[in-house]
């Protein structure tokens, strides 16, 4: 029965060992999928390379289906799986600023570490600039503390918010993903190729 560490089946002292092993696999998969290249990542926004959408969507769906199969099979206590809290306004504003950062910088945090690891100087600059951004946020935090904590909706799931069952939501999500994979394959054929 999982999750193993929160339930004490594996001792918590192993947590950081797993962190390194999981991180190695994470970095290896991202780099092997091309996520160390900003020009490949940016392709999703200009239609010349939809790798980001394909990897991101198939990963989220694989993990979500897996989690709920583990739950149905009694292998995991789904109530102990962390559902991150929703602070509506702060989440949307944060997302918009991150989107701007993504299109200017060509990376997100995880992918910038991958680019930095293989010697991309732009990724190294992005990584350190990100820390500068976090520093700026922290110093000015008192000015937007109220906004940061507003719109708290709890640790809620998307299917509860929509008022539908988890299985119906999953079917809809898979249908959207398949439609997106098909539509983007058509778009990519029409967009002028970018050599990078």
């Amino acid at each position: 029965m999982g999750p193993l560490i929160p339930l004490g089946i594996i001792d918590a002292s192993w947590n950081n060992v797993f962190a390194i092993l999981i991180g190695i696999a994470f970095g290896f998969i991202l780099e092997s999928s091309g996520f160390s290249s900003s020009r490949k990542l940016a392709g999703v926004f200009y239609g010349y390379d939809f790798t980001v959408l394909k990897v991101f969507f198939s990963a989220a769906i694989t993990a979500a289906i897996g989690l709920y199969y583990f739950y149905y099979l009694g292998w995991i206590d789904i109530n102990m799986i962390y559902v991150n809290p929703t602070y509506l306004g702060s989440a949307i504003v944060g997302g918009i600023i991150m989107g701007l950062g993504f299109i200017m910088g060509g990376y997100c945090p995880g992918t910038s570490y991958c680019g930095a690891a293989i010697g991309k100087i732009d990724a190294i600059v992005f990584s350190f600039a990100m820390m500068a951004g976090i520093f700026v946020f922290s110093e000015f935090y008192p000015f937007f503390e109220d906004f940061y904590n507003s719109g708290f909706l709890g640790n809620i799931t998307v299917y509860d918010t929509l008022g539908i069952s988890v299985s119906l939501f999953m079917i809809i999500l898979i249908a959207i993903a398949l439609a997106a994979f098909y539509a983007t394959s058509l778009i990519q054929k029409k967009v002028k190729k970018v050599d990078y």
Partner: protein
Amino acid sequence: MNDKSKIYWNPYFGGVMLGLLLLVTFYITGRGLGASGAAKSTVVATISKVAPEHAQESTYYSKFISDDAHPLNQWLVFEVIGILAGALLSGALSNRLKFKVEHSPKISPGRRLAFAAFGGIAFGIGSQFGRGCTSGAALSGMASLSLGGFIAMLSIFGSAYVFAYFFRKNWI
């Protein structure tokens, strides 16, 4: 142009591998993957070293400072050390290790680095408002079917599509 350094995994294969890793991570730790949290821990550790009183007084840094553990003694910090090692290994196996500024031939390396810096600053600020980035908030949040995960994904990618028009000369 089909040298070995340009050959990446099939994206659906990469996606399923990433999804399985995420599933294993949830099964072992009860939580998903992350990335920006390690940068935050680094900032907190630096400030509490350089200006300990300022860090203690700050309403933000002080949330992440405790007496029993160093600010860098965080799961995500160890995970990111792993990310660097894993990406280095993958890059080495595929002949992709090289110091370079990757940029469109239409722009100068200096312009690329300036925009990488602007983008990094914005992403750093945004990831604090969003309580996580593309990995922790969007990807892991979507996998656990949290509302926040879907909001993060839609607002990050939605806004990048809107802003893409204004920055197109940097990329295409």
